[in-house]
């Protein structure tokens, strides 16, 4: 029998996926063979794995910068700046969530190995999404990421809201996956390949007589991806899931899942289907504006801080879509810069919420934050900074991020889109103001006032909140390095 040509493998390019998946599987094996694992081991292992991925990203970045982007494994995996940047973001969020998870699990008396396993495997799926150069690989990465997150959302088995949220997330997520898959099938039917590079090549080399099938495929792809990043009108799951899930998991959903989703969206829409930008950009613009406005306005009506932040994450998704709909290198760079900043903001904010949740993860009402500034001034200060960052106040990272996407939209002549988004940003600022007022201006409850100093802040949470605040401030004051990084990360398609 004739030997078949087998694809070459760039092992260094697969290191992040390998680290995360092998790390997860090894931990799973050890945990099933050793009955009583020391309490600290799974967390330490996860942190080490995440840091190893971060370290591996440095030589990868240099290699890509010096030698240019390329693909491996028969063109199914792209190795370029965006892959490395999003991988690094995901790895950092994994480390942060692992730091938050252990005190949380101990407080809530939950069993604790699978959390880390699922977290690492989910991150592996996210990295696959960020590096997918093939629609099938993209779908598999998305499913690995999502299924792990559905389970993580249901992890608090004793909280009925956790079960409810996970159920809603799962059912709607399964629908979204079906849409995505159908869209991929139609795009494949219209272009004859699932490889993103070949799709782009085909579309740029041929003029389709009838592109209705391709357009239907793009529309369905857009639905599936918009669900993943929680853009209006596909956001309905967000508040319930954010409210019900264990708070460290919400940090992963907000920062990690969104980053992976947007990396995939940029790769598919902007890079691969860029020739049809005039077809998909207007709907994406509508999604963006709807997300910003609905997210901001409905967030104002909430009384639960987690639901507020859920809607605000919808608004952030809208801003990110603003960068996507610009459909050019500037917009893409702005999206990546926004993703980095939002990862910092979301992880930090949900770290504060993890601490504030208290026993049973229930104290998330706005009233629970009353007078926090008096009880826990440092925590309140950090939360203030993070909230101001989310609002996009100057000298914080949020300002730099929002300015980037708005500038990209304006440069693309999307004046009305940008204008409406600004309006939404102003409305969203009111949400954060409400929390700030509650923390600083209102008196604490009677029972909270006498002697209690508020929740204890574990070391892990201190590290996460501290790093997030420092990052937000640094980006706000010295935005240059991040913007350069994001500009270098704009993905380029390489034919296989």
């Amino acid at each position: 029998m004739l030997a078949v040509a087998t694809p070459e493998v760039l092992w260094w390019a697969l290191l992040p996926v390998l680290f995360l998946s092998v790390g997860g599987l090894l931990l799973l094996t050890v945990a099933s063979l050793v009955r009583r694992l020391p309490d600290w081991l799974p967390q330490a292992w996860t942190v080490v794995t995440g840091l190893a991925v971060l370290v591996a990203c440095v030589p990868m970045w240099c290699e890509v910068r010096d030698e240019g982007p390329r693909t491996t494994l028969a063109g199914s995996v792209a190795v370029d700046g965006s892959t490395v940047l999003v991988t690094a973001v995901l790895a950092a969020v994994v480390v942060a969530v692992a730091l938050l998870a252990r005190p949380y699990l101990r407080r809530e008396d939950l069993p604790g190995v699978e959390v880390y396993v699922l977290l690492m495997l989910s991150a592996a799926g996210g990295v696959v999404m960020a590096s997918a150069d093939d629609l099938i690989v993209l779908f598999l990465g998305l499913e690995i990421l999502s299924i792990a997150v559905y389970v993580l959302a249901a992890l608090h088995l004793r909280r009925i809201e956790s079960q409810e949220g996970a159920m809603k997330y799962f059912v709607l997520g399964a629908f979204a996956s079906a849409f995505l898959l159908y869209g991929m099938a139609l795009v494949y039917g219209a272009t004859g390949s699932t490889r993103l590079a070949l799709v782009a090549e085909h579309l740029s080399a041929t003029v389709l007589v009838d592109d209705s099938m391709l357009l239907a495929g793009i529309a369905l792809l857009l639905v599936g991806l918009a669900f993943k990043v929680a853009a209006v009108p596909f956001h309905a799951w967000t508040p319930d899931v954010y409210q019900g899930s264990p708070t460290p998991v919400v940090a992963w959903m907000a920062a990690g899942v969104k980053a992976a989703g947007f990396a995939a969206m940029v790769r598919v829409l902007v890079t691969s289907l860029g020739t049809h930008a005039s077809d998909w950009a207007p709907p994406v613009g509508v999604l963006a504006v709807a997300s910003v406005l609905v997210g901001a306005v409905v967030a104002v009506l909430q009384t639960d801080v987690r639901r507020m932040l859920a809607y605000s994450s919808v608004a952030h998704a809208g801003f990110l879509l603003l960068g996507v709909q610009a459909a050019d290198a500037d917009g893409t760079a702005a999206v990546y810069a926004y993703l980095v900043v939002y990862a910092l903001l979301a992880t930090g904010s949900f770290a504060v919420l993890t601490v504030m949740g208290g026993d049973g993860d229930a104290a998330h009402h706005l009233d629970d934050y009353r007078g926090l500034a008096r009880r826990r001034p440092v925590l309140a200060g950090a939360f203030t900074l993070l909230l101001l960052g989310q609002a996009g106040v100057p000298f914080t990272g949020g300002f730099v991020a929002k300015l980037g996407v708005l500038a990209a939209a304006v440069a693309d002549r999307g004046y009305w889109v940008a204008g409406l988004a600004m309006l939404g940003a102003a409305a969203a600022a009111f949400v954060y103001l409400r929390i700030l007022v509650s923390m600083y201006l209102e008196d604490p409850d009677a029972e909270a006032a006498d002697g209690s100093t508020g929740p204890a802040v574990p070391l892990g949470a201190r590290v996460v909140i501290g790093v997030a605040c420092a990052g937000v401030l640094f980006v706000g004051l010295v935005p240059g390095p991040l913007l350069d990084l994001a500009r270098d990360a704009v993905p380029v398609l390489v034919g296989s």
Partner: protein
Amino acid sequence: MDAAVFIVSAVVVLTGAAGVLVARNPVHAALFLVQTLFGVAVLFVLQDATFLAAVQVIVYAGAVVILFLFVIMLLGVDRAEDLGIEPIAGQRSVAAIVGASMLGLLLTVLLVGVDGPTGARGANAALGGAEDNTRRLGEALFTDHVFAVELTALLLTVAVVGAVVLARRVRGPLQPMPVVTVASATGSDDASATGSDEATATGDDPAAEADDEGEAG
């Protein structure tokens, strides 16, 4: 001959699919699903995709529907939900309109645009002999799509871990159900579970008892 087989199996597929939607008894719906999947297997045979046909019967009609039946039995066939009440008023009519227009759109795209959707690369050209089929598939899977194959293993592992975690016995008391309060400040789509601080102790949850039983191992 081919056309006749196609028409018959298409009818089998479509009646099965309609049966899944119409059947009141969930077990019947699952059996209709078997019918649909079997019809699809026949369509695969018609396309010379014999391996896929076998997989379709073994994995889908065999294993997946059995899993569905397990879940139906677990939950109890007789525990029917009252479908007469719409949780959100007007939801169903809107869903029907959107669904119908979506179906119409896709049908239009597929039927009207049937001539020129693709410019190149016949995706369903003959593979040349049914015997060759599985080997070609194997070569494609383990060269061009080798990364996808490895990812499938990862996906399966995640599924197993997820199933075990979710089927796990609950330790300790369940937390009380939050009382649904319609506070004046909540949004219109926000009627669920906002007043967690006003929760009352309804600790006697049936789910807790259900988990004590049958988990003797």
